[in-house]
């Protein structure tokens, strides 16, 4: 077989995306995204988080301690805390952390802790091997050195790791909007799946997969905000572009809400069960 080095391929995809970006918005981006993201993750009573939790029913129980990397607005903190002993959320964005606290208060959730840092800056030796499950959802695309970060996740776990990756594609309307605004510029590739699966498998892990389907609902205002922040990474958002985004969102909205169907792959594996790297 044509031998694929999945790490190299990952880096290539990462670099290609960076080339399209006109600026790296940093953590500030997530501060600005906190409001729309919180709304979308709260859709249908945390449907996304609940479906991931359900996929992991074989490996989670009321004694489990969980580390959540890139916790966002409490995507997992809220539904998981109700089932496990404790969940520790790593989240560098102050605004996201604010949403976690607010959402947790609203749901009466108290068995969580927040580490307000970037994952890469956390020293693993302080944490390992403390957790039964180390989980990360749609965060890894931000890491240039994928295997290094996956190995650090494993070092923090005494039983299982889980990576939830987006497994959807750009829908037709979104592609149209991209090219309307960006012209011929190749749309950025955020796909983590199935590459992460192939990488883990080639490294001798035995990962399981559950495909989940979920809804994300945002107010029109939040969806416009989301789209604008997204495009700001690639282009200066002029009043004309703003108008295109508004038209796009309004055309797809119903009853003041913008609904999207999402698909994700829940990949989980036992960190103690590995084989020699496949040659």
């Amino acid at each position, binding site marked *: 077989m044509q031998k694929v080095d999945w790490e190299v391929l990952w880096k290539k995809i990462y670099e290609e995306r960076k080339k399209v970006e006109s600026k790296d918005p940093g953590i500030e981006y997530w501060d600005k995204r906190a409001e729309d993201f919180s709304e979308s993750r709260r859709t249908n009573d945390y449907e996304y988080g609940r479906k991931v939790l359900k996929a992991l029913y074989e490996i989670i129980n009321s004694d489990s301690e969980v580390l959540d990397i890139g916790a966002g607005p409490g995507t997992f903190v809220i539904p998981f805390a109700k089932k496990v002993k404790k969940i520790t959320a790593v989240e560098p964005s102050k605004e996201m952390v604010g949403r976690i606290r607010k959402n947790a208060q609203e749901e009466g959730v108290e068995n969580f802790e927040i580490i307000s840092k970037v994952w890469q800056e956390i020293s693993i030796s302080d944490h390992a091997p403390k957790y039964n499950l180390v989980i990360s959802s749609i965060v890894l695309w931000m890491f240039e050195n994928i295997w290094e970060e996956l190995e650090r996740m494993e070092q923090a776990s005494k039983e299982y790791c889980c990576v939830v990756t987006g497994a959807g594609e750009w829908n037709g309307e979104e592609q149209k909007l991209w090219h309307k605004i960006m012209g011929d510029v190749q749309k950025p590739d955020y796909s983590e799946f199935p*590459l992460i699966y192939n990488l883990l*498998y080639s490294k001798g892990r035995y990962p399981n997969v559950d495909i989940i389907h979920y809804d994300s609902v945002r107010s029109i205002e939040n969806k416009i905000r989301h789209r604008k922040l997204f495009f700001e990474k690639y282009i200066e958002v002029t009043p004309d572009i703003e108008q295109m985004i508004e038209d796009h969102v309004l055309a797809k909205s119903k009853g003041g809400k913008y609904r999207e169907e999402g698909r994700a792959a829940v990949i989980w594996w036992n960190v103690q069960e590995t084989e020699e790297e496949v040659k």
Partner: protein
Amino acid sequence: MQDIINWEREWEEKTIDTSKVSGTDYWNKRAEDYANYIKTSDYNHGRKIRAIFENADILKPEFEVLDIAAGPGSVSIPFAEAVNKVTSIEPAIEMVKHLIKNAQERGIENIEVINKKWEEVNEAEFEKKFDLVVCSHASWQFPNIGEQLIRMNRVSRGYCCFANGVKSNDEFGEMYRKLGINPESLDHFIYLFNILYQRGILANVRIFDVVMRRSVNSAISMWELLLSKYREPVDRDKEIIRKHVYDNSDNGIYEKKSKMAVMWWKAAASNN
């Protein structure tokens, strides 16, 4: 950018020769040792596949299940004990005889056998007829896997599933070297996983431990027949095989632990 490999084309290239030397005649000869393996292992992998579908809350008592290349009933028998009906497709008549005998021994009456190759079954007759279609340890016999995939989806009104060895050729590697043969070694699971993905099918995956147990005679017979696909075993080969089997046996039982993967998807939700 992830589409840098055409997995389906590679699969075809790598299975075309091995599938040719493993026809119905071969499986007729293998029936005896294979049936011994399945029974001595107490239907280990079939039971585990069934348990995965039970735990995923998929398997229902009213299910009709299709088992492609059923052999001596490795999967058909454990499923027949839990569902309404199993239809077993098996081209090798000697395998069918074992399947019928094994079912009778366990008082199972809800298995229907179709003594044909899966490729020769007219899928139009079975349009959306099954709740679950299982293809276990058999996919490598179909070089045109994409076409078979479409046919599996067509006869299913619920789920389809592949069950395969994971990195399964590793355990055989040592023996192949000793015998000086070099069959195409292919990790069926990871190919199928990517083939499905490239066809727009996102499969669920469970990887699990299985145990193969068989009598010493069954293991010797398996190795001699495996070798005969490539050349007639001579005395020296037979000695190598005997030594390997006895070295790996305890109380007359040859035992190997390995891993299998089950991949399943909703036929209705796939793009085909």
